[in-house]
């Protein structure tokens, strides 16, 4: 233990006391404190409006496979927040990911592209043959997670990560396997443009950007939720391609 480490430890402990004392207050109802843990006052938070699907419409009961034409039709409430109420946030998030992927390829751009610093070894027998079985299954699982994102746990980001994992395994398994970057870019651009144009159509039809302009249908049916599943598929494609691009760039650096 030299002087630097002791100083660092003291700073960290002091900061920890400062953060903890915010939670050590004696709580009133609904306040966040250690004594109040697990008693979050959902009924007086904005979350209750999202759960009841009644931000703009009157409060009614939401019943599985019965309620029709609610304000947001997806059974997964997190999805209805991510892709419907706060879809503009999600557009920003996808833009951040896009900027990171673009910035990474700009940083790692190498004119002598033939020279690879990180040489991938030829995969072992198990990896090479296992990936032949696993690859279609992983793509299937990823697509399922994306398409059922408004009904079950999961969604476009998780599904996109699964698809990117499948492509990472493929890249690891063989030396020769190369991704067609132009095709990847084409998929990414199409997905991004269709996201924004769905939003712009909402602006044209209903008067505000990314409004739900389709019927929301019956809750928990596959074809429900209006624009939510469509937006989720575009986001899923975009995330999958961007994560694959990041992996590809880092492996070729």
């Amino acid at each position, binding site marked *: 233990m030299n002087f*630097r*480490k002791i100083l*660092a430890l003291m*700073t*960290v*402990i002091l*900061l*920890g006391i400062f*953060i*903890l004392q915010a939670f050590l207050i004696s709580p009133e109802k609904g306040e*966040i404190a*250690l*004594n109040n*843990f*697990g*008693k*979050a006052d*959902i009924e007086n*938070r*904005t*979350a209750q409006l*999202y*759960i*009841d*699907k009644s931000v703009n419409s009157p409060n009614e*009961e*939401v*019943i*599985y*496979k019965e309620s029709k034409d609610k304000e947001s039709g997806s*059974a*997964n*409430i*997190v999805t209805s*927040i*991510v892709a419907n109420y*706060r879809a503009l*946030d*999600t557009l920003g*998030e996808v833009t*951040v*990911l896009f900027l*990171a*992927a673009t*910035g*990474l390829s700009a*940083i*790692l751009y190498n004119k002598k592209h033939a020279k690879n610093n990180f040489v991938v070894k030829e995969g072992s027998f198990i990896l090479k043959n296992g990936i032949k079985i696993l690859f279609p299954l992983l793509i299937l699982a990823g697509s399922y997670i994306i398409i059922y994102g408004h*009904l*079950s*746990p999961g*969604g476009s*980001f998780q599904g996109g990560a699964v698809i990117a994992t499948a492509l990472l395994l493929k890249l690891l398994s063989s030396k020769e396997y190369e991704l067609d970057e132009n095709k990847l870019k084409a998929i990414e651009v199409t997905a991004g443009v269709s996201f924004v144009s769905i939003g712009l159509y909402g602006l044209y039809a209903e008067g505000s950007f990314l409004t739900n302009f389709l019927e929301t249908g019956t809750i*928990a049916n596959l074809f429900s939720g209006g624009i939510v599943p469509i937006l989720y598929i575009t986001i899923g494609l975009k*995330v999958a391609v961007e*994560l694959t691009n*990041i992996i590809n*760039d*880092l492996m070729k*650096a």
Partner: protein
Amino acid sequence: MIDFLEKWSFFGGSILLILIGLYGVITRKNLIKIFIGLSLMDTGINVLLVSLGYVKGGFAPIITSTINNNSYNFVDPIPQALVLTSIVIGVAVLALGLGVIIKIYEKYNTLDISKIRGLKW
């Protein structure tokens, strides 16, 4: 004992995770280890945010065939949606940082921040 753990494990644990990450960022000299510390801090903050919306005995906010209407006791879905954003941005920052680290290694042939001449003044 269980009561104590229930009370402390989420807030206390996530704050501990943030502090461990911060300690790593301050004391380590290897750039990769600094980034591991940053991503520990990231995880700690995410756990803290999700646990702010926790309800004891609450269900995941999904309407399914068993939990079939909105009168059930759900956990807060908003922190979960925001943490989803935060995780993705964490991945983006980590990837960009690793790209910069690769370039630094190509230029200086070291990852030790005390030996990188560009960082001295």
